[in-house]
């Protein structure tokens, strides 16, 4: 099936081939008779041997042989001197079959089955494996079988690590050996085995993998191993809190639904119809176990005794980087003074655990103030249309206003940063020497990003961004097949740069007069192909991402305060791409006009959206009962829009947006006030 040249067959070859076919056909039907009649005579078994020699993929023949062996064993009893020859014969047949096709699943499994009976020499097996390594060092069947034998013999991980050393020294271009090495080493490091301390071992491994990368920069064998080492250097095992909203030392004004039509306020005003505000915790990796037992909240706000913490993730997951609890601030009991301090503490009791099993252990607390404001009762708020073009002014923010928006990354107390920073600096020096190659530039860009992430010193922070952006520009030209990959990384680096200081962020902050000077973050017309740095933007309530190159809202689910979002003139291809917005319960205004919805037959977010397709949402309602055909046709619009509480939606300029679709939308979102700038029903 693979690697055979295409050529017209000559008549004499055809004849020979046809003769072989007839012979094989007759062998097969004779075999079938023996198999169905359960005949396990010597003659019958030999027939199956012949069959497997010609065609090791005939799986039924391997099954037959197992039945024949069991039949023999049942008749001769347990004497090892009688059992061993029978099993040895099986091993011989397997070896012959493997000579025909050393990738035959059936052959390798049969061998495992025989070895599992416990009468065969495992020493022979390792010798056999050496032979196969020489034939093809990438044969994954052989490597898997090796792992099987190693487990049977209890060979140590250190010995197996040495084996990968030998393989790599023999030929660095052996991805299978590097892979195996990563498995063994990560286990040895995790167990803190003798001589396997990360701060010594990781730098040594960097040295080793350099040879693979520098000898031939186009050979991928060492690339992924190097990336793993980088991950081990940069990422601490235990989870950390990256940011929160409200952030430490900030002040927030909390009000009722009508507040946005009331008197002017500053940036930190939050209005809610439900009388609760989201307390957001953003961790550096997915964690579970966030609950009132593991996160304590001291405040005078009443009505929060049975607080529920939700992970912002799809329904079947109990872990997430982002956790939210909704704290009530209006209640039947008046709360005395209107300013309340809220203290949040975590890490004092165990229970917050990363998906890899590491505990959140460093105790951490943050304090913020909330001012509860009486509502201007008019609850028919936000009936007026939100415009994205008129009514904006650059917000001349004072740094003191902005500082409260930024949380410092949780201080890495007690974490040994020194060896990590030294390793990164050393790698940066090395890879500057490889700066002409693709892998050199890419690795250098990643190293510089890692270095930025680790830098706590505000004076030095941000120095690398220009270089990083240039490297990605170079890569887009050098390796055009992967253009979009580098474009995405460029957008990520760009957003990190924008959010790296209050000064750079303030250039993108505007005030929207018609909504009470609500602060709007404008990141339009920046060729952004990807969203990033959301952990620094949790305070954002109005976001303009129009005129960019986004095709998904992945990442925005953390923006729990977001009420207005502009995604017009992007590359959104379907409503399933907006699935993350289902978590943004505050969202009222959404503009997805002038995108590509309905233009493509392939939906790349089909399985990243909760629906019956991914067995994650079957709930029925009236709309589905009455319009099953339309629900199937517009399934993703149905499931996504149904979960949003939109007042204003723009879908014009998308191929999907005809009359049938527009009226379907109005059925699914009955509370919609504005569709495409008009009041429906007019």
């Amino acid at each position, binding site marked *: 099936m693979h690697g055979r040249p295409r050529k017209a067959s000559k008549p004499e070859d055809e004849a020979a081939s046809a003769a072989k076919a007839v012979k094989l056909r007759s062998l097969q039907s004779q075999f079938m008779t023996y198999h169905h009649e359960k005949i396990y005579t010597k003659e019958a078994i030999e027939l199956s041997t012949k069959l497997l020699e010609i065609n090791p993929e005939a799986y039924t023949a391997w099954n037959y042989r*197992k039945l024949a062996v069991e039949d023999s064993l049942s008749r001769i009893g347990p004497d090892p001197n009688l059992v061993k020859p029978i099993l040895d014969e099986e091993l011989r047949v397997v070896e012959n079959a493997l000579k025909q096709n050393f990738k035959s699943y059936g052959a390798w499994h049969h061998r495992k*089955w025989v070895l599992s009976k416990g009468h065969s020499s495992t020493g022979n097996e390792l010798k056999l494996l050496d032979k196969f390594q020489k034939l093809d060092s990438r044969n994954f069947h052989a490597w898997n079988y090796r792992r099987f034998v190693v487990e049977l013999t209890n060979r140590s991980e250190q010995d197996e690590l040495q084996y990968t050393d030998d393989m790599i020294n023999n030929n660095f271009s052996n991805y299978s050996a590097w892979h195996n090495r990563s498995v063994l080493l990560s286990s040895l490091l995790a167990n803190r085995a003798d001589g396997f301390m990360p701060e010594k071992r990781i730098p040594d491994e960097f040295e080793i993998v350099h040879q693979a990368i520098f000898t031939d920069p186009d050979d991928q064998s060492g*690339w992924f191993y190097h990336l793993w080492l980088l991950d081990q250097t940069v990422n601490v095992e235990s989870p950390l809190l990256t940011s929160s909203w409200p952030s430490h030392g900030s002040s927030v004004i909390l009000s009722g639904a009508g507040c946005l039509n009331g008197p002017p306020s500053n940036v930190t005003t939050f209005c809610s119809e439900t009388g609760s505000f989201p307390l957001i915790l953003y961790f550096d990796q997915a964690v579970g176990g966030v609950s009132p037992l593991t996160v304590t909240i001291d405040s005078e706000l009443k009505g929060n005794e049975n607080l529920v913490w939700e992970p912002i993730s799809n329904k079947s997951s109990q872990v997430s980087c982002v956790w939210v609890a909704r704290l009530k601030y209006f209640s039947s009991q008046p709360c005395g003074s209107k300013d309340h301090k809220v203290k949040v503490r975590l890490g004092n009791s165990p229970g917050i655990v990363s998906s890899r099993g590491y505990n959140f252990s460093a105790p951490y607390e943050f304090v913020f103030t909330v001012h509860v404001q009486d509502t201007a009762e008019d609850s028919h708020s936000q009936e007026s249309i939100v415009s994205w073009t008129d009514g904006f002014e650059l917000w001349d923010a004072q740094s003191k206003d902005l500082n409260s928006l930024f949380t410092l990354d949780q201080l890495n107390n007690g974490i040994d940063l020194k060896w990590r920073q030294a390793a990164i600096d050393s790698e940066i020096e090395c890879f500057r020497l490889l700066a002409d190659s693709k892998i050199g530039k890419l690795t250098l860009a990643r190293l510089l990003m890692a270095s930025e992430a680790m830098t706590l010193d505000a004076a030095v922070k941000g120095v690398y961004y220009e270089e990083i952006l240039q490297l990605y520009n170079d890569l887009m030209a050098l390796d055009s097949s992967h253009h979009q990959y580098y474009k995405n990384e460029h957008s990520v680096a760009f957003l990190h740069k924008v959010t790296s200081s209050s000064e750079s962020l303030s250039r993108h902050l505007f005030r929207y007069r018609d909504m009470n000077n609500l602060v709007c973050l404008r990141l339009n017309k920046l060729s952004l192909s990807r969203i990033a740095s959301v952990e620094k933007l949790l305070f954002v309530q109005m976001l303009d991402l129009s005129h960019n190159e986004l095709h998904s809202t992945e990442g925005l689910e953390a923006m729990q305060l977001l009420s207005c979002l502009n995604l017009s003139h992007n590359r959104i291809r379907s409503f399933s791409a907006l699935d993350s917005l289902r978590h943004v319960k505050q969202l009222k205004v959404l503009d997805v006009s002038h995108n590509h919805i309905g233009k493509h037959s*392939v939906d790349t977010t*089909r399985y990243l959206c909760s629906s019956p*397709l991914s067995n994650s949402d079957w709930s029925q309602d009236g709309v589905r009962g009455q319009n099953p055909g339309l629900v199937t046709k517009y399934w993703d619009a149905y499931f996504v829009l149904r979960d949003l509480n939109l007042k204003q939606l723009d879908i014009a300029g998308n191929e999907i947006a005809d009359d049938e679709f527009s009226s379907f939308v109005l059925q699914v979102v009955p509370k919609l006030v504005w569709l495409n700038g008009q009041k429906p029903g007019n």
Partner: protein
Amino acid sequence: MSSASSSQMGQLVADKHVRYILMAEKKESLESVVMDHLRMNGAYWGLTTLDLLDKLGTVSEDEVVSWIMTCQHESGGFAGNTGHDPHILYTLSAVQILALFDKINILDVGKVSSYVAGLQNEDGSFSGDMWGEIDTRFSYIAICCLSILKCLDKINVEKAVEYIVSCKNLDGGFGCTPGAESHAGQIFCCVGALAITGSLHHVDKDLLGWWLCERQTKTGGLNGRPEKLPDVCYSWWVLSSLIMIDRVHWIDKAKLAKFILDCQDLDNGGISDRPEDAVDIFHTYFGVAGLSLLEYPGVKAIDPAYALPVDVINRIAFTK
């Protein structure tokens, strides 16, 4: 020589491929005798390709369906061909073919699903048959098959997902068993199984996405692992995986389409693993399926997780 020098992109000779498939079904060549035991897979590849090219009507549905039923065992499982032993591989292909013809209703769904569910082990993994070979391919097959039959609740989905996640490697990919090297075929199986069970949050999409996009070689074709040759079948396994995790924009789709088209036998029909190699049904299916994922005109849309046309899967998923 069969490579055309006409347009840059090349053309899909759909009619030739249809004829190739219909003829291959009837041949009694050495190749077809050797592949006798996996005829059920071959039928699935051939028939799905025909449906993608909107030519499923050219085969006799009754003939196919009655042959399929001769392959079913008393255990409920299906064999690769009449007389062979049952195996989970062929059970999925049988169910997939019946789904194409919208004939799932002829099955004793309880019996088939019990056979598949019975192959789940304590640790959540799946065996291929009673002889106990374990592989994440079988996890995918069980999940895909039971989802089509709407019997996913017959297995322990949580444990099944747990086992698949235990096969995740440090490069973001997946292997056949825990600790096994990442391979595009296994990755498709694991990502597909996670997609169908709403569990894609277990995948590090950026890490795996980069590993997958680096399968594109200078020829435009995709290989299955680092430093291996490109092969049309990876146009399916790598491409569908990239689509399921929304990272397909990280490869050059036009170059890949051109590679697939260059693997066609423009005279006799059929697609091969690499340009100028011998064609076969397997690569014909993967080439056409790959072109479907690349939105090549004239090819129906295929679902990246179930490997069946989107209209077939939508029909099954959205009706109670």
